């Protein structure tokens, strides 16, 4: 597709219903992902995020087969997996890492097996794994909006508790916060964020929506609320740019969005040398002091 003026370049895609829905979904998802993703990056939960995405797959497939909104099926299974990880690791026999490895491969296989009962399932499989923004329905938009608003409301309500658990879990325990309960709540919030993002970027790439904008923001700003804000702005700009590029260049939408976000991350990495070196120095002093003890 080509266009003549900047205005028509911007306006033409908007004349298509699927682009309107895709853009609306992308903007909402980018904001929620940046807010939850800021905690994911600070608590180093990216691997768990990736695992939750894969683990929610059977739920997405069941919803797909029953023609339910995919987000609902994925959310139920994702939350159950998040709680399962918590229970398995609290029983203590397995490391969290191992528990996640076992759970996520097993549940993902279940999803593939279920989907393979459908004739010519490979096209649908690709859509779910890599994202198919064209397939977003008005009902999906409603689910994304309601779930997204609910999650932002939860984070707003217990913001100071989540911050304290992230920064200093011992202090959180000292003042009597239910630390492990808050951890599982965060995993559940991650699971829901992931499943509402699956249709846009797909299961395999969804962790980028969660991690990349927040990671970029930590390179640019040094206050936690600003990490959320800058991450959200980057996410919105990146997903909109990605969708337009995908429209004009006729390439896969989910992959384009992730590539744009990754490019922005690399740019931030290159253009924030000062901040980078200062962090470096701080961690060096920390290392020196802890060895001198």
């Amino acid at each position, binding site marked *: 597709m080509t266009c003549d003026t900047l205005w028509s370049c911007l306006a033409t895609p908007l004349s298509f219903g699927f682009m309107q829905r895709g853009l609306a979904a992308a903007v909402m998802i980018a904001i929620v992902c940046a807010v939850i993703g800021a905690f994911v990056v600070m608590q180093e939960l990216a691997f768990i995020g990736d695992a939750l995405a894969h683990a929610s797959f059977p739920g997405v497939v069941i919803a797909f087969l029953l023609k339910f909104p995919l987000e609902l099926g994925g959310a139920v299974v994702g939350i159950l997996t998040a709680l399962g990880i918590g229970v398995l690791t609290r029983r203590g026999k397995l490391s969290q890492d191992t528990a996640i490895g076992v759970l996520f491969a097993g549940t993902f296989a279940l999803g593939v097996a279920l989907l393979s009962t459908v004739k010519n399932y490979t096209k649908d499989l690709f859509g779910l794994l890599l994202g198919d923004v064209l397939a977003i329905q008005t009902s999906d938009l409603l689910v994304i909006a309601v779930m997204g608003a609910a999650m932002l409301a939860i984070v707003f309500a217990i913001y100071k508790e989540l911050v*304290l658990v992230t920064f200093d879990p*011992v202090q959180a325990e000292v003042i009597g916060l239910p630390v492990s309960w808050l951890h599982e709540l965060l995993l559940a919030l991650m699971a829901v964020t992931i499943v509402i993002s699956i249709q846009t970027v797909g299961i395999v790439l969804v962790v980028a929506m969660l991690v990349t904008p927040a990671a970029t923001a930590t390179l640019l700003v*040094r206050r936690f609320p600003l990490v959320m804000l800058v991450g959200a702005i980057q996410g919105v700009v990146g997903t909109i740019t990605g969708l337009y590029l995908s429209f004009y260049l006729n390439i896969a939408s989910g992959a384009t969005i992730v590539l744009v976000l990754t490019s922005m991350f690399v740019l931030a990495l290159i253009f924030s040398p000062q901040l980078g070196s200062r962090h470096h120095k701080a961690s060096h002093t*920390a290392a020196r002091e802890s060895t001198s003890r």
Partner: protein
Amino acid sequence: MRVSYGAQPVLDDVSFTLSRGQLVGIIGPNGAGKTTMLKAILGLIPAEAGAVAAGGQPIARRGGHVAYVPQRDAINWRFPASVADVVLMGRYGRLGWLKRPGAADRAIARHCLEQVGMDAFAARPIAALSGGQQQRVFLARALAQEPEVLLLDEPISGVDAPTQESILAILNDLANQGKTLLLTTHDLRCNMEHFDALLALNRRVIALGPVDQVLTPDVLTRTYGTQVVLADGTRVALT
């Protein structure tokens, strides 16, 4: 009080009473259970037997009458917080769920930061400060809880002598204001004159009393066994 990890008791038959307004140092070798004792007092580790009371009442965790200054490896240094943010966190226990810190909380936090002489650093990122400065900020956070009792885990370790001196002077002031402070240290070279009492710990209480009654060759041998202990020259040098 008795605390165990698995079958092995880490602390056994530990029982003592401190009077209000004292600065007490807990000394003992690595593995003596110093940190464990602080955590058991806070209720972070369940005690198998025994109880902890302050002012005649069981220690209530919520509300924060007992504040804790952790060792620095307990902190997530990647988290982008300013010094003012960190001190304000000391108010969270008093606020409870769903409430946000208000102007009064900010004023208390600012005052606590002044008390430790770090008010000029309020806007700086916590991770960019030196170890001694960070220690003082966490002390300010503990003060913002308005506690009766402060427990400090190795607050003067890994910092240089002038910083140790200034931290101990601040702690001394707090004790004079009526707070009870209990701190662990494995560094016997610091200026012991600041302490009102020392508690020699090795799985059990070896001695508790004024500094000159605890820093004796007999007590130190029973606390440290054959380990070499460095004293500040004028006192004890034993092998």
